[in-house]
């Protein structure tokens, strides 16, 4: 087994694809407006013609690279390259103001690596165990897990819960289109053969994330691009190393846990890690003034999500975040169904993913410390040329998935919808959660009742079901109780 895994990963072709993936990922992440989700969605069609292991590792490389790459523009331009890097701005840009952007980028690189490695170790230790436990999951447990994931919408919608719910419900509604998986009844297809098998997930994602963002870029297409300062001395100093080594592993673990929760992605991982570091710090007042902890925590946190998100994806076929949802698509295209069977029938593949992901993190560290100047150059590609090219990539990407022009229309439609949603301050992330978890909730709810012949007691019949029930209640009610407690203390 070990020999097979080593030989399947350590060959020139695979390592080459990992390096290409990480490199592309860092470039995509560094460019404001190109997110990790979009990067992985756009690279996905390239893997159709490839074998499973290099294909998946290429995508994982893009994922890992993009989550890290977002910090480059966060630190240098005060614009997060990906939403995951939004928390990095708080302290990162302060470094640049002092002319220490090299130091900030060095801290970010090493912290991302630490967070990523922690998550890969967690992935490697937890998934095989969870895969065994996953056999205990039946329809009621999957239903409650999906509901728990959907309850996360409440905590990611920020100031407007009703908009978050609207958007999540929109995602669920899209998932109704097509043949009903329990009765075979065609729903909302309006006699259109293209709608029979349902909305294609990837074109919707490309539209909502990539195309809508490209439209937003058009608004400022004629304002000159920002100029970045020169960077020097990336290698962290001794005292910075100390900070990274103290904060990195903790934030990595936090990120991994956030990643495991279905639906919660890297941006939440970064903010929670930042909050935790600030709360437990001896000098919380210094956060926001440009201290190393302020970069180490969110960067280790968001890269910690990468491995965590793969845990439920590989073991149960439940995506930990939007990128993991695309990776499920990538595996299915290869004829591989994520789930516990993957661990018994494709063991080599699973462990190759673990090892390949570790190599991706090492590649990220090496590229980050050695070639930062190159990535900063990417930031100077004029958006007037880049944006039209993104248009083409969106069109070709959504066509290539099913070689169906209908999907191109779907992509464009959701690009326009997504643009106006952003205008009305409606975040598109809950829609993705709804699109992924909605059908999982619905089909398993009805499948459970089919199995129990209509008896609702099946939803309370196992400890796993109870755990998810409690977690859901805590997620929904927790913030309100916390709020009340805080108000009480204040008064």
């Amino acid at each position, binding site marked *: 087994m070990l020999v097979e895994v080593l030989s399947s990963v350590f060959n020139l072709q695979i390592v080459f694809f990992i390096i290409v993936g990480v490199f592309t990922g860092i470039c995509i992440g560094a460019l404001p407006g190109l997110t990790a989700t979009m990067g992985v969605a756009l690279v996905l069609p390239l893997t*159709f*013609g490839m074998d499973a292991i290099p294909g998946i590792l290429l995508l994982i490389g893009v994922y890992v690279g993009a989550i890290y790459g977002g910090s480059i523009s966060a630190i240098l331009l005060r614009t997060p390259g990906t939403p995951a890097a939004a928390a990095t701005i708080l302290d990162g840009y302060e470094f640049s103001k002092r002319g220490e952007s090299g130091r900030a980028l060095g801290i970010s690189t090493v912290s991302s690596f630490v967070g990523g490695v922690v998550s890969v170790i967690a992935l490697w230790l937890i998934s095989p165990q969870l895969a065994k436990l*996953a*056999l*205990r*999951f*039946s*329809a009621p447990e999957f239903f409650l897990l999906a509901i728990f994931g959907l309850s996360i919408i409440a905590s990611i919608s920020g100031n407007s819960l009703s908009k978050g719910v609207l958007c999540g419900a929109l995602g669920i509604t899209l998932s109704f289109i097509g*043949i*009903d*998986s*329990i*009765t*075979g*009844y*065609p729903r909302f297809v309006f006699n259109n*053969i*293209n709608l*029979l*098998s349902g909305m294609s997930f990837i074109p919707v994602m490309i539209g909502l994330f990539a195309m809508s963002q490209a439209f937003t870029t058009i608004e400022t297409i004629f304002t000159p691009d920002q100029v970045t300062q020169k960077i020097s001395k990336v290698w962290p100093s001794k005292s910075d190393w100390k900070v990274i080594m103290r904060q990195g592993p903790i934030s990595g673990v936090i990120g991994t846990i956030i990643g495991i929760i279905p639906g919660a992605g890297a941006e939440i991982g970064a903010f929670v890690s930042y909050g935790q570091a600030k709360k437990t710090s001896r000098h919380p007042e210094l956060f926001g003034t440009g201290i190393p902890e302020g970069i180490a925590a969110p960067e280790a946190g968001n890269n910690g999500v990468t491995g965590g998100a793969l845990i439920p994806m590989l073991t149960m*076929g439940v995506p930990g975040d939007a990128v993991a949802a695309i990776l499920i698509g990538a595996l*299915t*295209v*290869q*004829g591989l*169904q994520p*789930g*516990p*069977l993957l661990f*018994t*029938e494709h063991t080599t593949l699973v462990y190759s993913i673990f090892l390949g992901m570790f190599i991706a993190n090492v590649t990220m560290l090496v590229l980050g410390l050695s070639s930062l100047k190159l990535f900063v150059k990417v930031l100077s590609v004029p958006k007037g040329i880049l944006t039209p090219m993104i248009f083409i990539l969106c069109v070709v990407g959504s066509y290539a998935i*099913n*070689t*169906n*022009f*209908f999907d*191109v*229309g779907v992509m*464009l*439609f959701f690009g326009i919808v997504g643009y106006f949603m952003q205008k009305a301050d409606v975040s598109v992330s809950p829609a993705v959660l709804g699109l992924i978890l909605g059908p999982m909730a619905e*089909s398993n709810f009805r*499948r459970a009742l*089919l*199995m129990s*012949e209509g008896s609702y007691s099946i939803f309370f019949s196992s400890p796993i079901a109870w755990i998810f029930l409690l977690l859901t209640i805590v997620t929904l009610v927790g913030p309100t109780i916390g709020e009340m407690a805080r108000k009480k203390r204040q008064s």
Partner: protein
Amino acid sequence: MKKILVTLLLLSLTFGAVFAQGVGEASADTYPSGPVSVIVPYAAGGGTDLIARALVDAAKGNFPKNITVENRTGGGGAVGMSYGANAKPDGSVITMITVELVTLPHTGTGAGLYYDQFEPIMMLNSAYSAITVKADSPYNTLNEFLDAAKTKNMRVGNSGVGAIWHLAAAGLAKTAGVNFNHIPFDGAAPAITSLLGGHIDAITVSYAEVDSQVRAGNLKVLAVLAPERISATPDIPTAKELGYDVAIGTWRGFGVPKNTPKAIVDKIYSFFSVAAQSPGFIQYMANTNNIIDVLDGAEYGKKLAVDNAMFKALIDELGLKQQ
């Protein structure tokens, strides 16, 4: 207004795709005078796609102007097969047809598809349903299982409502005079997982799909719904031997649009039947647990008609017809 525009746009896209086909000359002597495409109605990388690609790879020497595989997915196979059925009848577009060709029209989700739109060239492979239970299940034979089903409501998992393995379970129940509680899953793998976890009583997916779990000692196969024993597993009885005359399975083959000149059909058959005997293809099929089962156009055409009638009756009985 915007809605109308979008609708128009979508319509034009759909029609555009239908009319945008390669051009080729319809003459048997010079066939193939242009590039030929093989339409696979399922996603790239899936079981059907890989078999099509393996065969095309073995046959490509006969197509000097290039032969390519095109995946046109959607509608559970209806999109790709409809596309292939409406192509020019000159052999430039060959379609991989699957058992869904004779099931989808009866569930009302075939979008006008019917098997007689195709001129069958040859059947390439087949896979029959295997009645599989957990290794520690109290039932050791099909008869024990079906006897128990008379009093107990057996939960039988399948790979999707109206899919071939659902019909297989229904066909067995009908022959045996029992009722199953059919539990549909999204594909075979989740059904197998659920059986392994002990949440359902049996599954009816193909033998190839449960092979590794049977070898690992986690599952056992009570019988296969095949006309005769499968050569890879000679010790598993068929349902027919046990007194239940039912054989249901999936198959894959090739077809061209109706009215394609007979000479071209024969030429494609000769190319493909030779390719199906090539060592590379045989090796590939053996590695992937697939069974090569070649029928010529005439035999295949008969099978299409027989299966079509059988599935029509089953689907009507199950109440799976929509609208």
